């Protein structure tokens, strides 16, 4: 150790040149996407909504499984509860759908507390199926709630969707019909949610708790020995992931405006797709889900006409990627080029070699 205390002997940094360029490009990209509705058709806006909401779900599953080491197959529980809470707020309490989205996030956190209590009693693979069982319990329970349509589901009242916040304004500015204005509004919200999600997860992983999180995933015993409260980190990540997933679920169903227990708690739509996005893109990285969702969208567009063969192919691709390149496409790219757009690894630079 140097005794000189005036200048720090070394610098811990996470920035790289690529990450600084990426940050600038990311801001520019978000700016372009904000103005997208001015020159894009309704179809593209709807596609972008799908991509952005799947990206949010993928980022939160990745936070849970890739960073938190908790492989859940029950994320549909939070999508469904978020969506149903939003519907409840609109139908039962007469709320506007937009603020009711926050209710969705809140509801997801509330049900996540007992979920975690049960699921944390199960280890590894059994945790995965346990979360699935709890999602099934929620699906079957919501099918019993007759006020929200029971097993057949229900729609948002026309009055609520017509008079949704800001849709009048958007309809005037863009000179479009009410339904198209709703698509633009939900698109903007999805963009905001996706940008906030990535920024928040990136900030978390670069912070001290983020370091603790990686430590717990890699070796819980060693992490505990240096003073990390592993149990608390698990709770924190699980509840955060539930909150974000619930918000995304509520937002998705504001756009769909029609809900049923089987759709809102679908393991295929809200967990299987999300899993494949993260695996194909690269688990345990922020870049992975972004690449994954693009590949997923392209595959879906290409294979949309082939029905079940599409899902079959997706399953096989998932298996092959897991066996051949377990760190996904982004893992392959980093191995080849060394580029990291969202670096979370701490690197030591400066400092003297002589001591």
């Amino acid at each position, binding site marked *: 150790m140097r005794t000189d205390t005036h200048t720090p002997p070394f610098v811990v940094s996470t920035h790289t040149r690529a990450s600084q360029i990426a940050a600038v490009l990311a801001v520019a990209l978000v700016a372009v996407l904000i103005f997208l509705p001015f020159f894009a058709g309704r179809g593209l806006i709807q596609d972008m909504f799908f991509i952005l909401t799947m990206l949010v779900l993928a980022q939160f599953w990745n936070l849970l499984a890739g960073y938190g080491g908790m*492989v859940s197959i029950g994320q549909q529980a939070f999508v469904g509860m978020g969506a149903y809470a939003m519907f409840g707020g609109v139908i039962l309490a007469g709320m506007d759908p937009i603020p009711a989205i926050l209710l969705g996030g809140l509801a997801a956190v509330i049900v996540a507390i007992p979920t975690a209590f049960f699921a944390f009693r199960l280890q590894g693979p059994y945790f995965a*199926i346990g979360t*699935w*069982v709890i999602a099934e319990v929620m699906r079957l*329970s919501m099918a019993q709630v007759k006020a929200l349509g029971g097993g057949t589901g229900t729609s948002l009242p026309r009055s609520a969707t017509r008079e949704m916040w800001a849709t009048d304004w958007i309809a005037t500015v863009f000179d479009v019909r009410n339904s198209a204005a709703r698509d633009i509004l939900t698109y903007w919200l999805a963009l905001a949610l996706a940008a906030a999600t990535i920024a928040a997860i990136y900030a978390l992983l670069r912070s001290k708790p983020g370091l603790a999180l990686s430590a717990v995933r890699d070796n819980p015993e060693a992490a505990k020995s240096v003073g990390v409260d592993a149990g608390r980190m698990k709770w924190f990540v699980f509840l955060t992931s539930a909150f974000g997933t619930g918000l995304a679920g509520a937002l998705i169903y504001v756009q769909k405006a029609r809900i049923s227990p089987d759709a809102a708690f679908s393991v295929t739509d809200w967990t299987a797709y999300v899993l494949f996005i993260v695996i194909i893109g690269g688990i345990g990285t922020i870049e992975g889900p972004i690449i994954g969702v693009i590949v997923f969208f392209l595959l879906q567009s290409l294979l949309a006409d082939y029905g*079940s063969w599409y*899902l*079959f192919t997706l399953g096989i691709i998932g298996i092959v990627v897991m*066996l051949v390149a*377990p760190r996904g496409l982004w893992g392959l790219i980093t191995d080849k080029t060394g580029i990291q757009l969202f670096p979370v690894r701490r690197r030591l630079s400066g400092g003297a070699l002589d001591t």
Partner: protein
Amino acid sequence: MIWIDTLAQGILLGGLYALFAAGLSLVFGIMRLVNLAHGDFIVMAAYLILLLVTLMGLSPFVAAIIAAPVMFGIGWGLQKHLLNRTLGNDILPPLLVTFGLSIALQNALLEGFSADSQRLPTGAISTASIDLGVLTVGVLPLLTFGSAIAVIVGLNQLFYRTELGRAFRATSDDATTASLMGIRPGNIFAIATAIAMLVVTLAALYLGMRSNFDPNIGPARLIYAFQAVIIGGLGSLWGTLAGGIIIGLAQTVGAAVNPEWQILAGHVAFLIVLLVRPRGLFPRAVD
């Protein structure tokens, strides 16, 4: 009177769930692997039996005997060439690979056999019953329950009385040391999965004779099997039977109260056991 009947039905249904679960329990006990495609393999075996029945005009029992070695081979190949490559300290690869397999299998079956509900032709046995004085029970449910007990006795004998069973236990305890003694863990795992597929074939036979099935019911069978294993306690096959009976009872009683509550009641029973006895009723394995 009706309650005694309901309880008897529930216990006998538990036999079917124990059959679903025995394969899962066996594989987990030996290699700590949970095959998320387990339910879909049961459905696949049911279609295989159906195919043999319709193409060759066989009785479902004979068809199952022919299907069993095929499933044995599939299990062996699957473990040897695919799942063995995923085993290790990281729990992600086996989970995600078997989940991908589950999705792929479901959709391949959907493409091959359509989403229509199917049933194995059973003839007289499906309606035959035995009068026990206080209640009358169906021959088929009784046969299912008897098969579950036979499978558990058989697996326990295999585990504790044979050389293969010793190899299973040794590999389960410490694969590295076992390999020093001339055991090849990869082969042992392949045989274990192959045996699990034999049980799967038997489960598929009874599933197909007792109820309708379609390509999408696999995941629900996996969940029942999983619940039976957890309630019983990891590593105990008799516990798995008890777990199956508890799920079966809860579902039958739930359905008797309100038909919409059947599945929910099973899940609630599982959660209650998890709350009261997190390690199951008869825990044996340390993990």
